[in-house]
């Protein structure tokens, strides 16, 4: 299995240890990743789309065209990249006139997008039944002792008419992957709440959303070892704001936030010292302890 790896910006530049974990997982699962030459930002779905939808679509289509030249589908590791590239691919597949207009722009820099590129997030691939089986067989360190809370985030699954994968209100794909690693997953009321990262104008929106989710997770009967996210924005939003909220409110909020590929890497046998689990505000020391004793 081979994909064009679309890294985006935030992970390779600010959180390279998440990329490292993903590459390790892909390597163990025999997924070949080809680097993409000359791609830029996906571009990020909040500002670019808000300022000009055509700019957003044309820049996205250029990235899709580069994958098409490689003859490969795209693998994304960030929900923002996934949303942009998948939305652009679906919009252009459904609207021939628009595709023509966008190609009119791309042709001036010698690109053509015909609409062949499929866009994946690794959750979409690894949650397919045959991949779950493969993962189960390759687990060397079952995560039996861990109780993990999943955060799906918004852009992975909605709007479902575009993303066309998992249920938009009762998703299960990430839970299935964690169960394949033998981890337990927690059911909780605020599971589907947004992290608030994209609400740019009012800081308090994000802080209140983070407070709500983290407070609930801290009060669950069975202790939660980590919140698991699949997007760099959600990951940093919960990790950073959890500390800020704890300081402001005096609440004891101490749930570490891990990226799905990191826990996959642990279960698939990557040594803990080769991952950077402590590179965050809330250190997952209790979890590391559980895994090493």
């Amino acid at each position, binding site marked *: 299995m081979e994909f064009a790896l679309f890294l985006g910006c935030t992970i390779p530049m600010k959180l390279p240890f998440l990329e490292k974990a993903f590459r390790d997982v892909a390597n163990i699962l025999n997924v070949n990743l080809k680097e993409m030459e000359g791609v830029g930002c996906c571009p990020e779905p909040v500002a670019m789309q808000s300022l000009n939808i055509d*700019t957003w679509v044309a820049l996205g289509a250029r990235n899709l065209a580069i994958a098409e030249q490689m003859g490969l589908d795209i693998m994304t590791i960030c929900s923002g990249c996934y949303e942009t590239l998948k939305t652009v691919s679906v919009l252009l597949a459904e609207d021939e006139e628009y595709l023509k207009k966008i190609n009119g*722009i791309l042709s001036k820099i010698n690109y053509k997008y015909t609409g062949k590129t499929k866009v994946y997030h690794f959750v979409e691939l690894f949650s397919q039944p045959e991949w779950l089986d493969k993962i189960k067989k390759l687990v060397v360190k079952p995560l039996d002792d861990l109780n993990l809370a999943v955060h799906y985030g918004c852009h992975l699954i909605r709007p479902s008419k575009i993303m066309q994968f998992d249920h938009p209100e009762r998703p299960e794909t990430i839970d299935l992957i964690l169960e394949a690693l033998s981890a337990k997953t927690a059911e909780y009321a605020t599971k589907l709440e947004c992290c608030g990262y*994209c609400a740019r104008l009012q800081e308090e929106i994000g802080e209140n959303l983070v407070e709500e989710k983290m407070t609930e997770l801290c009060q669950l009967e069975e202790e939660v070892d980590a919140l698991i996210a699949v997007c760099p924005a959600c990951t940093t939003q919960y990790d950073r704001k959890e500390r800020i909220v704890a300081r402001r409110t005096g609440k004891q909020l101490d749930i570490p936030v891990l990226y799905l590929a990191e826990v996959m890497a642990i279960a698939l046998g990557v040594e803990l010292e080769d991952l950077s689990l402590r590179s965050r505000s809330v250190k997952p020391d209790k979890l590391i302890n559980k895994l090493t004793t």
Partner: protein
Amino acid sequence: MTQMLKKNASELDHEFRYEISEKVGAKSLLKCIQCGVCSSGCTVTEYVDMQPHRVVASCLLGLKKEVLTSNAIWTCSLCHRCTERCPKNVDYSFILALLRNMAVKEGRVPKEYSSTVVTIYNNGFVVPYTGGLKDNIDRRRDRMGLPQIIPPKLEEIQFIINETGLGGLVEEEKEDDE
């Protein structure tokens, strides 16, 4: 609190609804039945000056100025629950993007949004990747045994931004910064 707004029919922009609905994906605007499902599920419903169903109603009524100057169109967290749950398939999150595009054309754009586009224009990436910042990023990746970042073809990205009409905005931002 919502204020009572009195308007004569002659003060309304009756074409506004069609300005929106003529765009692919936004035709759904005209199907709204004002049930309020969008507003009840909205992540930011308690923070906006106009809730989603009221924004839609205002578009249909022709309250163009009120809609395009509201904070509601910029406060959205893009969770897409409105679009997902609408029983009439009104694509509210897409309509909001169109409304933001219209506000930008009238020169109203929050700095939080325009600065992101300038960063992409200057770097090709949404994270600054020049000078000392680039050196730090490269060194850190090298230590982890990760491959070098392949530079984006910046002139192509800038061409697309200019060609689709955002070049002027980037120039203005640069002047502001100087």
